[in-house]
Each structure stands twice: as structure tokens, then as C-alpha cells.
């Protein structure tokens, strides 16, 4: 079974994330980046599936030069090869353009048995790329899987909702997005780190994918960020002095915030 996992290099959520002043896009230069933590679950699930049968895991990303770090992490975890789609014209691409690039790259890799993605990125957090990608590849789409089994020609997934869990089945090839409940991602091992240095990483530009620069980038985006402002610092908490009516005041406060 061959699997393509789509991953994203995102600014470290632990650091001070911001936007570029020049074009209001995400600042990817001023902060440390890493493999989106939600994508680690996708990589782990792909590795488990391949380890249980056979085949290869290819990790795919779209992003600037630094995005190679996300691929490196996935290769260190055990993925077999990587494809990095990068081009200056891609800067500022929205979800439709990203899904176009991913789809073209997957077609060029050769449509696998399964495409696995995380449920969303930890920076944009839109969670729409898996659906767009499935549409472009004309694949059955199984999103938010918290459990996954593949049996012969079908994939069975559990989707946990607020009130019920669904079990759904799709024929292969299919696209699956996975949640952070599906597994416990492994850490790379030192041997994995050393082995990753020898694994193939292909770098493709727009020309390799037959995509026109006008179809991607900030100019082609359907939406754009007009302005941004930092969230104001948290205000000081309100201190209620108990003068015999502390309970009442507390209840009034909670009621005013609609907690009770």
C-alpha cells in the first residue's frame, strides 16, 4: 500500500506568532517553524498502516525553503521519501490554491492507495484543504477519522461527534483526514535522524506541476487579510471583597457572563 501524507510547516505555537507588515501574510521568517503537530498524527497513521502491510509513505508539502524542515521531521519519523513544492510565486496562496498544488503534485507522484492529512493546520486552522483536495483528485473523502482500518479495497473510519460516533466506509483510493485522537505519534529515533539524511527529497516548482503562476499566490487568493491587530493584553481580574454578600456577587458575575 502506498500512502501520500500532506504536511505543513507552521510557526511554532509556543513562540510569538504574527503577520508580515508588508502584505499581511503569516510571518514565517521571524519565528521557528516545525511540522504542524496535527500532521504528526497523519504521518504516524501512515507509518503504522505501511508497517502492518508493505509499501511506501511519501510526505508532501507546499511551502518556502524552510518547509523542508517539516519533511525532514517526517522522514526522521520513518517516511520513505518526500516531495517539496516550492516557488516564489506560491507566497500568499489560499486554501484553493494550496489544494490545487497538492493535487497536481499527488498526480505527478502517482495517485496512491490513500492520501492522509491532518484535520487542520495549527496556524491557519481552516481545515478545508482535505475536502478541496479530495474534490480535485476525485477521491472519496473521509474526514476527522479517530480510528482507521484498511481491509483489502476499503477504508473504514470512525468519526466522533458531540452526540454520536459514526463508522463510515469508503473504497480505495481515498482521502482521509485524521484527528489528534487517532494515535500517539512516535518520536524520531537517533537512527531515524541519521537514516533521513539519505532519503530522497524531490523539489518541484510550478513548471514541474504545469501550474501557471497566475493560479496561485496572493494575487489569486479568493480572500485577503485587510488588516491585523494584536489581541490586547489580558485585563486584570476583578477582585470581589466578601462583605457578607460575596456569594451573591459571585453569582451575579457568573450570570453576567452567562455561565449560570
Amino acid at each position, binding site marked *: 500500500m502506498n500512502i501520500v501524507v500532506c504536511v505543513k510547516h507552521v510557526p511554532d505555537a509556543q513562540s510569538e506568532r504574527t503577520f508580515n507588515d508588508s502584505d499581511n501574510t503569516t510571518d514565517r521568517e521571524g519565528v521557528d517553524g516545525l511540522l504542524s503537530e496535527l500532521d504528526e498524527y497523519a504521518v504516524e497513521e501512515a507509518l503504522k498502516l505501511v508497517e502492518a502491510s508493505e509499501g511506501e509513505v511519501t510526505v508532501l508539502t507546499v511551502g518556502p525553503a524552510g518547509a523542508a524542515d517539516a519533511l525532514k521531521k517526517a522522514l526522521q519519523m520513518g517516511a520513505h521519501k518526500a516531495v517539496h513544492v516550492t516557488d516564489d510565486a506560491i507566497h500568499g496562496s489560499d486554501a484553493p490554491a494550496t489544494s490545487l498544488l497538492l493535487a497536481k503534485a499527488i498526480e505527478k507522484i502517482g495517485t496512491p492507495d490513500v492520501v492522509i492529512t491532518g484535520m487542520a493546520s495549527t496556524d491557519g486552522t481552516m481545515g478545508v484543504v482535505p475536502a478541496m483536495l479530495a474534490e480535485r483528485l476525485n477521491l472519496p473523502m473521509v474526514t476527522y477519522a479517530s480510528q482507521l482500518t484498511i481491509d483489502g479495497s476499503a477504508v473504514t473510519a470512525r468519526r466522533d461527534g458531540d452526540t454520536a460516533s459514526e463508522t463510515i466506509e469508503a473504497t480505495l483510493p481515498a482521502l482521509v483526514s485524521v484527528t489528534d485522537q487517532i494515535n500517539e505519534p512516535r*518520536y*524520531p*529515533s*537517533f537512527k531515524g*535522524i541519521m537514516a533521513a539524511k539519505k532519503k530522497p527529497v524531490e523539489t518541484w516548482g510550478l513548471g514541474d506541476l504545469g501550474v501557471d503562476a497566475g493560479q496561485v499566490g496572493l494575487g489569486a487568493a479568493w480572500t485577503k487579510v485587510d488588516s491585523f491587530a494584536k489581541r490586547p493584553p489580558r485585563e486584570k481580574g476583578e477582585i470581589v471583597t466578601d462583605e457578607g454578600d460575596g456569594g451573591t456577587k459571585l453569582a451575579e458575575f457568573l450570570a453576567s457572563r452567562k455561565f449560570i
Partner: protein
Amino acid sequence: MPATRIMPTEEGQELIDLTREICDKELRPKAGDVEAAAAAAGDAFPTEAFRTLGQAGLLSLPYPEEFGGGGQPYEVYLQVVEEIASAWMSVAVGTSVHSLTAYPVAEYGTDAQRAALMPGMLSGEQLGAYCLSEQQAGSDIASMTTRAAKDGNDWVINGRKAWISHAGHADYYTCFVRTSNDGGRGLSCLHVPAGTEGLSFAQPERKMGLHGDTVGEVIFENVRVPGENLLGSEGQGINIALAALDSGRLGIAAASTGLAQAALDLAAAYATQRHQFGRPIGDNQGLAFMVADMEAAVTSARATYLHAARLKDAGRPFSKQAAVAKLVASDAAMKVTTDAVQVLGGAGYTQDFPAERYFRDAKITQIFEGTNQIQRLVISRHVLGDART
């Protein structure tokens, strides 16, 4: 703040990155709770932490790749130990002890012994224990009485070893035993797998700190191992033990440095957050200078162990420098953790902050792997010996 490091290779830096990730996600968040549970139960063990480190390949770094090791120089291996210590001291000490247990096989074993034993020791699946001390043979190891007698091709061991880390939890025991009455020259080293008949363990010691490091007596009652379990030659035991200790001291020096770094980081953060008289307490020079001295102590500790490690990696003598590193780094750990409690004031004395745990964990570093008095003996003999020639 993570320590500033210059790693000799790119892979060394990647190892540090991997170690920090595992420390942040797996070790640091669990250390306090597991240590407290181990203290209460008297015998709990961070099995999970060692498994995680083993799977990541962090328990076998300084040994050759052909046997499953990481093939890393001590300069890199020790900085990994330091990072682990800054997250969880017991686990760092365990990592150092485990490395020590593989040393006699790696350095004194035959090719056949290395091929048979090292892959398991370095797999990350096994943990070792190092059985040297006895109740009446601590610093004076030549006075040990645990005895192995030849019976046909076998060795039969009788006696008790004391202060043994991982007692009852280890997968194998690297043991030093008396094989003749020839004083220090009558000692030999034997490999004893866990589960060997006659091997048993006393109740673990109730200690001041380092609770995750289970320590106790290992009891040998007619423990029989085959002749091929002898590591090195008969009578070579004391040489092996002393050589292993030189390397082991570096592990303890690195762990002490990491512990001191953790205490410094905690104190510095607290000094900027805690306000008294309308300003952070760190704005008072009296306190700021304490922090400066703590930083100087941590930095000098790191410098001494790295210097010794680089000598070792270059194949140069490093015994004196290892003793200096162990002395300087463990004294730094004691001083810095003591001062960290002081910076945190009453809060530092409570179990709501890890300062008191760091303080309790620090004391043993001045005692084990050769007391700091023994380190001074080693250092002075080197210095005065050199002066005489």
C-alpha cells in the same frame, strides 16, 4: 532558557533538538508526580521514561554503531545527559549508570562477548545495574568481600552489594567480585543476567531525594554464571572499575550541570515575576548577584565536563579532569539548588515548586560515583605526582 551550545556536528545538534523535544513533552511534565509517587511508595520506577529514551536511541549514544550504539563522542553524549537532567534528574542518573554498565563489555570484553551482549545492552530495551559498592566497601573498593568461586567452568557468587541503582529493575548486573585474596588485585568483573537463580534484592533504601532512582542491596546466594561471563581477565576487576568510574564521573558531572541549570532557570523566572515593594525581587542587587553567581557556577560546571570529555574523545588522559568536573559540577549543583530555594523564599520550601526537589536531588551528587573528598584525592595525586616527575 535552554543552554547555549556549540555542537561539534550537525547530527549532534539534531540529537540535542530531539532530546529537548522528548524532555519537554515526556519527562519534565511527569518528573514531579513520579518522584512524589516513588517517595511515597518507596519503590516506583520511571520505566516508561527509560523506554521512551531507549526507543529514541538515547540510552546507547557513546557506543559503536556496529553493536547498535549511536557512535557519538562523549562531548555530545554528555550534553544529552545534561539536557535530560534539566528535565528529570533520576532519569539522567539512570542513563549515566546504564552507560557505565556497558563499559566493561565494550572496553574489556572479547569480540564474542561484545557480539553477544552489546546489542541487547544498546537496544534501548534493556537497562543495566552496576554492582561495585558494599556496606563496608564504599570508597575503599579493594576491601570488598562478595566472592566468586570457580566451580568447574562456572563462577558461583555469594555476598551482598549495596547502593545499587536499578536494583530489582535492571535486566542485567555488571558485578565486581573477589576471585582471590590478593587485595585490590583479587577482583574480577562478571556479567549476571537478571533472573539468574540465587539473585535477590532487599527492600529499596528510603532516601532524601532522587526517588525515581531505585537504590538497594543486591543479594547473591550461590548465583551461578558460566565462565564466559567473566569480563576482562581474572584479577583485572579494579582496573576496569576505576576506568569505568572515570567515564561515569563525567556522566554525573553532566547530570549535575543539568540539575543546576534547571534550578537557575526556575529562580530566574521567579525573580522576574515575584513583586515585593512594587518591583520584581530580581531588581534588588542582592538577589540579582545571587543569580549571577548561579549562572557562573552552571557555566563553569559545563566547561569543566566538556573539557574532560574532549580530552577523552581525543584519546588523551582525562582522569584528573573528570575528577575536577565531578567535583566542580556537583558542588555547583548543591550551591545553585540551595540558592534557588532561597530566591523562591517560602515558596521554594514548599512542594508547590520543584526547587526543594532540585535541592534534595543535588546532595547525592557530592557523594556518589566517588565522594568529593575522593575526587580531591584523585586530583591531588595527579597534580602532586606530575610535580614530582
